[in-house]
């Protein structure tokens, strides 16, 4: 259950990016994760929900895109995506496959609301 550690880093980066753009709320967080990160989507989702309470990311939807491994067949040289470690080459059926990648863990997008953070004083400002 290392998802809490990952969620902590994820929120830190997401809040930094949101701040750069003057966000008042984060509505959606888009993340890309490689299979070597061992992320269980439900657990990451739960961790983000828990840790974002009281921040502008509270209630944000986490969109997790899982990145497949890259496969290369040592027998026929084909390149393809690999979902699972035990696949065989889709072209020649060989199981002699080099698997690479899987270390990705990136923030790839945010959907934000801009503007002043509502603090209950709306409308109290004097018109210029």
């Amino acid at each position: 259950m290392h998802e809490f550690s990952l969620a902590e880093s994820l929120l830190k980066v997401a809040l930094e990016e949101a701040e750069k753009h003057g966000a008042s709320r984060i509505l959606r967080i888009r993340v890309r994760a490689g299979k070597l990160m061992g992320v269980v989507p439900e657990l990451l989702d739960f961790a983000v929900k828990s840790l974002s309470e009281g921040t502008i990311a509270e209630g944000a939807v986490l969109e997790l895109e899982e990145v497949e491994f890259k496969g290369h067949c040592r027998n026929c040289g084909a390149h393809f995506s690999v979902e699972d470690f035990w696949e065989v080459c889709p072209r020649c059926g060989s199981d002699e496959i080099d698997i690479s990648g899987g270390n990705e863990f990136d923030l790839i997008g945010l959907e934000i609301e801009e503007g002043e953070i509502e603090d209950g004083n709306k409308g109290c400002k004097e018109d210029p």
Partner: protein
Amino acid sequence: MEIKVVRKILEASIRVAEANRRILKERDIRSFNFIGSPGAGKTSLIVKIIEKLKKYYRIAVIEGDLATVRDAEVIAKTNVPVVQINTEGACHLDANLVGKALEELPLESIDILFIENVGNLVCPTAFDLGEDIKIGVLSVPEGDDKPEKYPVIVKASKGIVLNKIDMLPYFKFDKERFYSPIRKLAPDMPVFEVSCETGEGIDEFVDWIISKIRKEEAR
């Protein structure tokens, strides 16, 4: 409004890992990160290889545990410097914790650093500590299906230890079932069958560690 961005989420952690790597490299220290289940025999294995190596190399150990200093106490009996990290519940070591532990070690007088990760076959593989080499420690009582069920540890490791081979007569352990996923994922993976109880296979493993120290290899 949509913001497009590509940022490595673990960038801060990656930076610290790289800093650790630099610190170790500058002092010519070779580092090994031992990953395996609780009870696989990581501490016993480290004690065994310290006994063999300490005549020739200056060794230090970083011990990762959820709580307690038991393992550090076991290591301390070998008279090498040891720093205990208690993660207080976290299931893996990270570069920050290792960086802090490095500050407590006499780095100017160390040739080899052994890092014993928290007992866990999954989470530690996702975190770069700045080490040179990850070693997966598996054991006979855990079962012959572990490489197949935990391929990530095989993928992440440069060497695999199968510990407790003195227990083979007492367990249904099919070596073919153990080796075949390893061969498929990493055909050149060195696998060391050892017993910390009888000492069998330890010398071969120690020779491999020495070969890794002598041969600077790209990660």
